[in-house]
């Protein structure tokens, strides 16, 4: 079940920290590399904070290792992508920039974010709750302190190109009367994320919340091939909605309706109703960005696959095969961190700050040989060429050594 997209957003921050962080990071602004929205170039590095729920601390550790190893003195265009809990981290770096200072500062705060009770994460207990007809959603206010930090108290317009994703619930939903029941009347074409109801095409499976630079770049893809609808982030409120849309996974937080659905750009005409329910359709939302930026390198923080039963439940509810989509998204990476079974298990047991230690050590190790640091478990997607028709395979799985300082 989609519970796994969200292992536990154990992020609790005292409200006062938000102020401290904003003040601190604004003073670091001078050290941040200036963003560019140029054409695709080999200076582009897409950093994907892959959805991983409670293991979110891992990504902060990984980000710090990346910041330490990246050659920040060279010409480098950082682009951030995030899904589900990863959307919070992508937003943090999209708003504050990725530097050693911002990464260390965020990590230092992790000890204050270690309350794992913010979310209802236990899959088996949730299943029982669902069967008994109980509401499993946690109040979104639980996340507000961390949202305040990553979005600069709701005032941030991202300085860096940013993409967040969320599922279109009103399009995907095929639940029937019982908690595990399905009408089984919908089908998603994973080649283009078109959704069919009783054989009739009804829309796209998801929406990209993207900064205008990314929105412009995505326009290079044929609309019918683009996997998600596009909702440009034009105001800080758009960003807040994007974060909430991406973290509001089924059974974790209540779905959120878009009060301005007309701002969603869809190949299927004007959108009059849009309800988002989490980023479960995209563990790693990089496919379309790689297609419009074929020269870009892609780095991901990684995530494990779902169990068969969990994948089935989400498929029953929302007609979406998360594991297949994840295997296909892995095709586009140059480097993507991997979990050992022990690491993944351990992240369930340790506090967020300790997860960061694991992520940090793993990322440093991964970046020693970034070509080898990638999963062998992946599959070729239907859209395996760039928007202009070039084969992407030779431009993937190359590592990101060219962006790194020589290791000591």
């Amino acid at each position: 079940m989609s519970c796994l997209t969200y292992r536990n957003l154990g992020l609790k921050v005292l409200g006062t920290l938000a102020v401290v962080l904003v003040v601190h990071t604004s003073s670091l602004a001078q050290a941040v590399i200036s963003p560019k929205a140029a054409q695709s170039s080999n200076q582009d590095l897409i950093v994907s904070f892959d959805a991983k729920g409670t293991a979110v601390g891992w990504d902060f550790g990984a980000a710090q290792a990346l910041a330490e190893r990246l050659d920040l003195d060279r010409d480098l265009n950082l682009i951030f992508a995030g899904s589900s809990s990863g959307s919070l981290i992508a937003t943090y770096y999209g708003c504050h920039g990725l530097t050693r200072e911002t990464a260390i500062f965020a990590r230092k705060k992790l000890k204050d974010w270690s309350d794992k009770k913010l979310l209802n994460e236990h899959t088996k207990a949730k299943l029982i709750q669902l069967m008994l007809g109980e509401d499993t959603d946690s109040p979104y206010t639980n996340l507000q302190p961390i949202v305040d930090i990553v979005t600069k108290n709701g005032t941030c317009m991202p300085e860096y190109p940013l993409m967040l994703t969320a599922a279109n619930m009103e399009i995907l939903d095929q639940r029937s009367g019982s908690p595990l029941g399905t009408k089984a009347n919908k089908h998603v074409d994973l080649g283009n994320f078109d959704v069919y109801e009783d054989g009739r095409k009804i829309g796209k499976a998801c929406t990209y919340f993207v900064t205008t630079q990314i929105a412009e770049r995505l326009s290079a893809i044929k609309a019918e091939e683009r996997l998600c609808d596009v909702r440009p982030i034009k105001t800080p409120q758009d960003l807040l909605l994007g974060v909430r849309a991406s973290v509001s996974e089924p059974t974790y937080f209540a779905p959120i309706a878009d009060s301005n659905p007309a701002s969603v750009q869809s190949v299927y005409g004007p959108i009059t109703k849009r309800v988002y329910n989490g980023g479960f359709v995209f563990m790693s939302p990089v496919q379309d960005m790689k297609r419009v930026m074929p020269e870009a390198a892609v780095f991901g923080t990684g995530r494990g696959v779902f169990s068969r039963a969990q994948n089935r439940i989400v498929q029953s509810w929302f007609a979406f095969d998360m594991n297949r989509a994840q295997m296909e998204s892995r095709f586009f990476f140059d480097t993507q961190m991997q979990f050992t079974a022990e690491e993944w298990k351990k992240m369930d047991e340790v506090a967020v700050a300790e997860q960061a230690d694991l992520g940090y050590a793993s990322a440093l190790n991964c970046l020693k040989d970034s070509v080898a640091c990638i999963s062998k478990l992946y599959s070729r997607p239907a859209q395996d060429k760039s928007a202009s028709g070039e084969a992407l395979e030779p431009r993937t799985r190359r590592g990101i050594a060219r962006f790194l300082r020589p290791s000591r």
Partner: protein
Amino acid sequence: MSRTVLLPSLIPSLIFCSQALSSPLVNLTVHQSLVSLLVNIPVVETRPVNQTTADGVCVEGDATVRGLVTGALNAEDGGAGLLLKMETQTLTSSRQSTWPRRNIFISFDWDITTQTKAYKRLALRTDGVASGDAMAYSESSIAYGPINAQANGLFPRFTAAMALRAAQREIYGRHDQSVVDANQSVGSQLAASLDQQVEAMLAPIKESFARFVEGPFVKRKLLGGAVGFGGDEIVAQIRVEEIEPQQGSVVSPLVVTELEPVAAEIHPKALENFIAKTLGGAVFSDMELIEMMFDQALPIDSVDDIHQKAEELLVHFDETKPIALTFNADEIVVVARGSRVETLGRSWTNIDIKRVFKIKKDNGKILLSFMEPWSIAGRDGSAIDPVYSKHMIARLDEILPQGEIDISGVEIGRGLPVKLKLASIRATDQSLLTTLSASVK
């Protein structure tokens, strides 16, 4: 052993009314013996006493309370009742009681022994757990120690002697009032203490009741019927009936057939209703069912592992009746009803997958035997090509092979302060009768 308990007919508003002679979907009884095990809480408490009585005596000392809280089932209008009884003896020993008068200082010791019985009523009804204020009844006896008097001013010895005599008259003269005061003081304190402690204990119980009983079974009717509570001095009872109870109808008898601490009679319809409301319309493959049943993810070592394989058995459970059950002569027949079943690239509609379980008793053990193989056929009786049915059975055997399971040691309710174990299970004509034994952990 068996017996029948008839609920006193003087409880006219008891529910389960219109179903006078029908068998309930669920009939769960909890015997007084379980309550005696669960509610047997010793009270030992010493607290300092520092108070001034109404007539100005300043009492300093200790009060030691010793006693026991027990529970007794009782008849409760429209619910299952429990009377908590706290029987205590409080010994209030003053180290020094003083009674200052102008120029005279009276001091004395006394021991007050107060026997108190406090009661608090609880009732379990469909809308939750209700409780009344605790009531206390006390009886005190007082033993006085020597009374001393000291005086200042002229002729202090004489004055003190006079004062002592006056004080003795007054103290002894006030004996009856002092007994009344002690009864009231100790009684009200213990009643308040009982209220406070029980309410604290009740908070999680109320929450659990709301979550696990009221929400799913009373409001959402997951068992397919209306829930009612009843009881008398021997058993508390939960019943689920198919038809809504109506006030003022004939009271149906409570039939209890077992003397074990917990006995349950479950009609197959209750389980069928529950499964329909939770699993109806679900789709699972045999591999996914294994993961769910054993709470363990099977390894995914290759990309192929994430795809459903052709050999997997995929069952689309029927929306309205995913499982059919029959209980008879210690046999439980389970039929999983698939609106569609798929495997090896073929699919079939309206397929019944049947398994027969037998309850056996062997040397005091209770065994669940499933020696008979799976049987798979169309709901209309049509057969499936043996190539496919054999394949399906082989897949299902991965989930549940033939054999016997000893279920006599099965424990229920691990969070409870007592150990509940399966004591007996019988499948009779249209009902499953189970009892649980209880022991102190």
